[in-house]
């Protein structure tokens, strides 16, 4: 009886109209953009980190939750995006902020190039295949002097710029990234490509039988998610001014993405927002507990998976029938 009631509720999800959602995103972005008026540099730095980590998680969610591609190697693109920006800026003296689109294109292009290879692998093999490529990239970068080898490199161009301005610009880049990963992804999911992505995720064979080119749909999903991930990586490392292969190509990035998406709810835009908040709260509370911290994070993720496989937002949505970013196409 209870199950019946819940399922009837779930079939009538209340969701605001797309215009309202986008307007809400706009207001939230404006408030965030104006926040430097009231906050100091330390706060801004924390918000930059929160927003970029949120962007990492949201791109992983786009892959796993919507494109049906589980990748354990997305740190590859964090590293590629960041290295692309650092190397070009240091070599040419170009303003790194203008290089952000280049970092996006470079990461998306790298994803496009490896697609023919990694798409031959499925499921766990795909997940590990990309991970292996990330390791290869880390080892390669660590051995090349022109890439700074293991000790990495510092961003030269921003040294001579006005520090307050650089801090603000980094902050606004992070806010823009946050907007792209909520409103932008929301628009993407309501588009034709969004419909093709979820159809392929749900049933590959039926998607092909309905006229969807499965390979190219996955390709676009992978390239977009990886490109934005690389963009976020570039933005993150630009804000800390220093980059080294061990940190940029660190598999722990994927662990964080996984944790956030699993806790918050995979396959929803709201999930990673909630998950990011929980991750940073836990990190704050458990600071200084050493390895116990990682074990507690792991335990929290396992508990969530057992209790609510669709994460906290999945449970909220089912219980109360609310949805904010609904890509659902209604019949009337």
């Amino acid at each position, binding site marked *: 009886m209870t199950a019946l009631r819940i399922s009837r509720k779930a079939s009538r999800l209340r969701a605001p109209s797309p215009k309202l959602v986008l307007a809400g995103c706009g207001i939230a972005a404006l408030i965030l953009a104006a926040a430097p008026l009231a906050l100091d540099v330390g706060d801004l730095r924390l918000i930059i980190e929160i927003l970029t980590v949120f962007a990492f998680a949201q791109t992983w969610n786009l892959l796993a939750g919507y494109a049906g591609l589980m990748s354990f190697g997305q740190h590859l693109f964090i590293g590629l995006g960041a290295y692309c920006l650092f190397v070009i800026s240091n070599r040419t003296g170009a303003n790194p902020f203008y290089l952000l689109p280049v970092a996006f294109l470079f990461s998306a292009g790298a994803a496009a190039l490896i697609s023919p290879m990694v798409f031959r692998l499925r499921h766990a093999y795909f997940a590990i295949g990309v991970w292996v490529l990330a390791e290869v990239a880390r080892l390669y970068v660590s051995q090349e002097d022109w890439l700074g080898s293991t000790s990495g490199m510092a961003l030269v161009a921003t040294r001579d710029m006005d520090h307050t301005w650089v801090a603000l610009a980094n902050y606004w880049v992070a806010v823009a990234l946050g907007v792209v990963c909520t409103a932008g992804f929301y628009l993407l999911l309501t588009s034709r490509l969004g419909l*093709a992505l979820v159809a392929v995720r*749900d049933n590959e064979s039926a998607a092909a039988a*309905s*006229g969807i080119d499965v390979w190219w749909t996955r390709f676009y999903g992978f390239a977009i998610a990886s490109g934005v991930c690389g963009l976020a990586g570039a933005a993150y490392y630009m804000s800390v001014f220093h980059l080294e292969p061990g940190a940029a190509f660190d598999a722990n990035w994927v662990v964080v993405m996984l944790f956030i998406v699993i806790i918050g709810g995979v*396959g929803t835009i709201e999930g990673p927002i909630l998950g990011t908040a929980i991750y940073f709260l836990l990190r704050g509370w458990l600071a200084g507990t050493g390895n116990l911290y990682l074990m507690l994070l792991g335990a929290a993720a396992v508990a969530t998976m057992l209790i609510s496989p669709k994460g906290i937002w999945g449970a909220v949505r089912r219980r109360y029938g609310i949805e904010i970013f609904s890509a659902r196409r209604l019949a009337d």
Partner: protein
Amino acid sequence: MAPVLLIEGLSKRYGSITVADAVGFQVARGECLGVIGPNGAGKTSVFNLIDGTVSPDGGRILLDGMDVTRRPKHLRARLGMARAYQVPQPFPDLSAFENVLVATTFGAGLSASDAKAVARETLRLTGLWDKREVMAGSLPLLDRKRLELGRALASQPKLLLLDEIAGGLTQMEVVELVALIRSIKPTVAMVWIEHVTHALSAVADRLVAMNFGRVIAEGEPQEVMNSPSVQEVYLGTVLDAPAAD
């Protein structure tokens, strides 16, 4: 009139097992070709070859005169092939409406507003309108079968491949299904694999009987059912009496 579907010498072997051995037949617009045969005769395998799930070792597939033998599955779908699977293949985490919308958007290639309109129409036609916002994964079997047919119809096909869509339905439901199929029939070419033979004989203009991957008889329904080779295959099964289910 030129046939919508023409297959010639279609063959497929897996090692020593031949699932299709020089299968050939054709279907014109407004015509329904029934395919019968015992389990394992290769009926579904021929569908897999026609719709591009499996590529043949030999033979040709012409859709509306165009050779699609080497075309991938999604292109065949866009060129006008649609298939309702024996085991329904919904998109479980999409609503019934969205399931049909996928077919109108990509299969039929309609613009956003037309795709929605045709999807709505299809749901009404297949009796799923009241369940339009229900996730396909939580629909009961009968509704999933309806949705399967609806998805195939929604792509506005020239060629409709129906794989045992009457199986498991009650007598009343079969009557409804037959009425629905008859109403669609004039606009498409149809190939229908079915064990529920009274449903098939109510619609089919011709029959093809298969066994061991080969066509063993083809022609008028009564003629095929009464042919000695078919009688032999179905020995012990009375084919021409109305089925009891």
